């Protein structure tokens, strides 16, 4: 065994330890959520629950509209993702595949609006949604997240690299742009669309600041806002809070276990800019 492989092995062991420490907070969350309260506050702390209990989970699920929050989150994330992908596809197409005056300037304008985080717009959005009488509804949360430039950006990057012979052939056959987009471009662009779906779903699933302002009745809360309400009600009752956090983390964990590689690959694609 030479020096290099020994060194590599030591590094690998160190990284495995670090990775375990990295996910330890999750372990701590899950175990705290199923410990009876005295065990949570025991000194010295107990690593594993001695007498696991679902009491805290029960409180979260029965005294709070937790499943409703989950449902709201699914609705908001699905609607945001679907609509933003739907409006980004045709726009990305004309930026990537057609030539027209002002194209590059307009693209740059859209692109630079990536610098406008939702957060700086919450006051005007509040006024706007109030005037449209949409506060405390799904559209209030969904509408501001649809026109995100990342969508056009990501798809355009992909569309540009599709060989133009393909649409030339379709054009000779008398296809218009809409049919070329639908029959030629889209079938070849599944990876880019999947990447955008993953990105937008994650973004919408996690959106916090604006949702907290736009949604006011507990029945309309999404998961992050509902957890915030739990915290307001229980302060340092960590059994209940960790049970709630565990339940909220569970869908992401399950999805990730199944789709780990496609999620990571999708996120990676958003980097090729």
């Amino acid at each position, binding site marked *: 065994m030479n020096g290099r492989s020994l060194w590599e092995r030591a590094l*690998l062991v160190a990284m495995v330890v670090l990775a375990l420490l990295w996910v330890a907070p999750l372990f*701590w969350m899950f175990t705290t959520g199923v410990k009876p309260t005295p065990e949570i506050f025991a000194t010295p702390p107990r690593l594993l629950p001695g007498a696991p209990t679902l009491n805290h989970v029960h409180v979260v699920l029965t005294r709070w509209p937790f499943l409703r929050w989950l449902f709201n989150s699914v609705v908001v994330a699905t609607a945001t993702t679907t609509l933003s992908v739907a*409006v980004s596809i045709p726009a990305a197409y004309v930026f990537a595949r057609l030539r027209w005056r002002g194209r590059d300037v307009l693209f740059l304008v859209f692109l630079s609006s990536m610098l406008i985080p939702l957060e700086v717009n919450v006051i005007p959005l509040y*006024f706007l949604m109030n005037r449209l009488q949409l506060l405390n509804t799904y559209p209030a949360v969904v509408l501001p997240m649809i026109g995100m430039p990342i*969508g056009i950006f990501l798809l355009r990057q992909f569309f540009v690299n599709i060989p133009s012979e393909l649409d030339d052939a379709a054009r000779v056959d008398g296809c218009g742009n809409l049919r070329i987009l639908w029959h030629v471009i889209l079938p070849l662009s599944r990876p880019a669309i999947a990447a955008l779906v993953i990105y937008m779903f994650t973004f919408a699933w*996690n959106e916090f600041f604006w949702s907290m302002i736009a949604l006011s009745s507990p029945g309309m809360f999404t998961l*992050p806002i509902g*957890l915030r309400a739990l915290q307001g009600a229980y302060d340092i009752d960590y059994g209940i809070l960790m049970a709630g956090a565990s339940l909220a983390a569970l869908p992401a964990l399950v999805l990730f276990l199944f789709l780990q590689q496609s999620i990571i690959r999708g996120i990676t694609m958003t980097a090729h800019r």
Partner: protein
Amino acid sequence: MPMVRRLRLAYAVEIALFLLPFAAFWILFRLGPVLYGFYISLFQWDLLGDVAFVGFGNYATLARDPRFWNALRTTLAFAAMAIPLIVGIGLALALFIFGVRRRPIGRWLEAGFFFPYLLTVSVVGLIWRWMMDPDFGILLIALRSAGLDAPSFLNEPRWVIPALALTTAWWLAGYRMVLFRAALEDIPDELYEAARLDGASGARIVVSIVLPLLRPAVLFALVLSTISGFIVFGQVLIMTAGGPGRASEVLALYLYRYGFEFLQMGLAAAVGVVLFAIILSLTLLSFRWLGYESHL
């Protein structure tokens, strides 16, 4: 001739129709609010709901408010700590994951480091608040039992920002890691092999080949993380609510409080405009500094 003109018009209309759905949302809910926010910032609301035009009065009020300057300071302190942590840890992890990419365990390690990114900010905030609880936080207990004099981070003005930055790094570094790892894979293999044949050590390869080639990716990550550093909100609200005192009251929290607790909508809108101006100027500066045009 009229035929050509008609065709041209049809082409323009078609392009406009393809752009319209996106552009409509973009104008109504992205560009529009920026302008509308500036307009709102020129007015003042009193507690009865009466509105008065005050010009740039709200901005003058901000400039005189020590609480605003405090919020700006905490935001800068947070950004100055969180951004290097996120980017630095992300880069270190990426280099390592790239190094073990041929081993099956590499995938699992990457998944472990990445996963926290998929958690919502409330979950992240709650977990770390619990771990840093002054009396029962496992992190404090562990540090103390290791003989370190661990302060109760979230209750100490000096430690609260680093604690929030660390939490944020745990949450987001995995995302940066995945992006950096992708950038590493774009570096042609021949470069590594040539260096290896020349007898360069692993560390040497990293320093002289990998890091220079990653420079654009790293700088780009710095720009994007800076934006997210300036709008930090959720983890602060959950973990400290701006405390102790106002030691962690960041700009977004200040905006939220003035807008929705003190109902000073004009002032809050002005904070939004200031935040936007800061982000815009920082980004433009760094674009110039990076020669960013070449990346578009």
